Every structure is written in structure tokens, then in C-alpha cells.
């Protein structure tokens, strides 16, 4: 976990970058929980190729989220971080949407 950038960095009274980093971590964790439930849902149908493919797809959605989060966590670890890009935001929301669509397809 990146600590304070350097002693010369301006003091941020609100610890905004750190809070933002932790928010990304929390959200990645929430995504992991939803992904585990999705995988469990898929495996209820047995362990054939189709359920395993579904598990792989859910894992992919989570990895995608993890990638976005990791990049963003690195990007906010500087004294004056740039704003989140709409593409990264769309990717993060897209992972959630993928899990929801996945769930709708798997309910029985």
C-alpha cells in the first residue's frame, strides 16, 4: 500500500487520496463477494463445461474490476491526483452489470 508520497507533498487535511484508495479496495471486496455468489450459483448446475465456463466468466468480471481498481489506486497515490476517467468508471459499472446479467441468466 503506497504511503505518503514524499515529505515535500502538500498536506491534505481530508486524507482524500487515502480514503479514495480504501473506497476502491472496499468495492473490490464487495465485487469479490458478489462474484463468489455468482460462481456458487453456476456450480449448482454441476461441474460440466458450461458451469465451469460461467465460473470463468464471473472470475473474469472480477479480474476486470480488480485491474481497474489497481490502476486507479496507483493513479491517486500522487499529491494532486487526476480525476477518474469516464472509461474507467464505465468499466467498473460494466463489471457490476455483467454480474447482474449473469445472475438473471442463471436463476432457476
Amino acid at each position, binding site marked *: 500500500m503506497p504511503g505518503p508520497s514524499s515529505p515535500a507533498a502538500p498536506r491534505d487535511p481530508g486524507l482524500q487520496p487515502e480514503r479514495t484508495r480504501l*473506497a476502491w479496495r472496499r468495492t473490490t471486496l464487495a465485487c469479490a463477494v458478489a462474484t463468489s455468489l455468482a460462481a456458487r450459483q453456476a456450480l449448482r448446475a454441476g461441474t460440466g463445461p458450461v458451469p465451469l465456463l460461467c465460473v470463468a466468466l464471473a472470475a473474469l468480471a472480477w479480474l476486470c474490476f480488480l485491474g481497474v481498481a489497481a490502476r486507479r489506486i496507483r493513479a491517486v497515490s500522487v499529491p494532486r491526483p487526476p480525476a477518474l476517467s469516464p472509461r474507467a468508471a464505465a468499466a467498473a459499472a460494466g463489471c457490476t452489470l455483467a454480474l*447482474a446479467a449473469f445472475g*438473471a441468466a442463471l436463476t432457476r
Partner: protein
Amino acid sequence: MIDTDRTPGRGRLASVVADVRLWFAPERLRAEGETPDYRFSLANERTFLAWLRTSMALVGGGFAIDQFLPDTDRTLRLAAALTLLAGGAVCAIRALNHWIRCERAMRRGEDLPASRFPVVLGLAVGVIALVMVALVAVRWGG
């Protein structure tokens, strides 16, 4: 979307289309107004993430209902699960849309967009919780 505020002089559909275009064109967002204090942008980002977590909780709840209530009537179980999953999807799309509208409003120095979504979501979750309480009570009583 349920967000009330929109740019005056444009139709609702046109404004939604413009918002959606912004999702994939960061350079157009940066072209608007001035870059706000980074702390405001980060606060907006955390709000977006909080909404995303809400959305994931709804999606996870949908999965949980389908998996952990095997004895419930199938129609009821499917309806509840699909409602939660759809709620999660709407919540994620709305989170993205609201984030970008707030970001744009901050760049332009406008007021932040007002939204009815939190009230609607809160009421929906409240109603679902009351129905669940009633169902559990009926089961115990009967």
C-alpha cells in the same frame, strides 16, 4: 433515468444520449469548464463507488435469494431474485450517469444535479423489507 435536473433547452432523450456519449469520451468531459479542486472530484468518485457497492449488494442479494431459499415457492423466489438483480443493474447504470453529471456540473460551476433515485430506492427496499417481515410472521404464525 429518474434524475430530475437536465440541461435546459434540450429534450430529455437528447440529454440522456449526450450523457451516454460522455461515458466513453473522456476528452469531451475535460473540454467542459475548468478542472475543479481534486478533492471534489475524489469525493464524487467515492460517492460513485458507494453506489456501486450498493448495486453489488443488490446483485449479491439476488443470488442469495435464489440460492438460500430453496423451499420457497419458485415464482416468488424468481420474482424476488430478478427484482433485486434488475435493481442492482439500474443502480449501477444510474451511479455512472450521476457521477458523470456531477463531474460535469462541477467543471461548469453549476449546482449538482438533484435526484429522486435515493428516495425511490429507499422506499423500494423498505417495502421489500416489510413484505419479508410479513412473510416470516405468517410462516411462524401458521
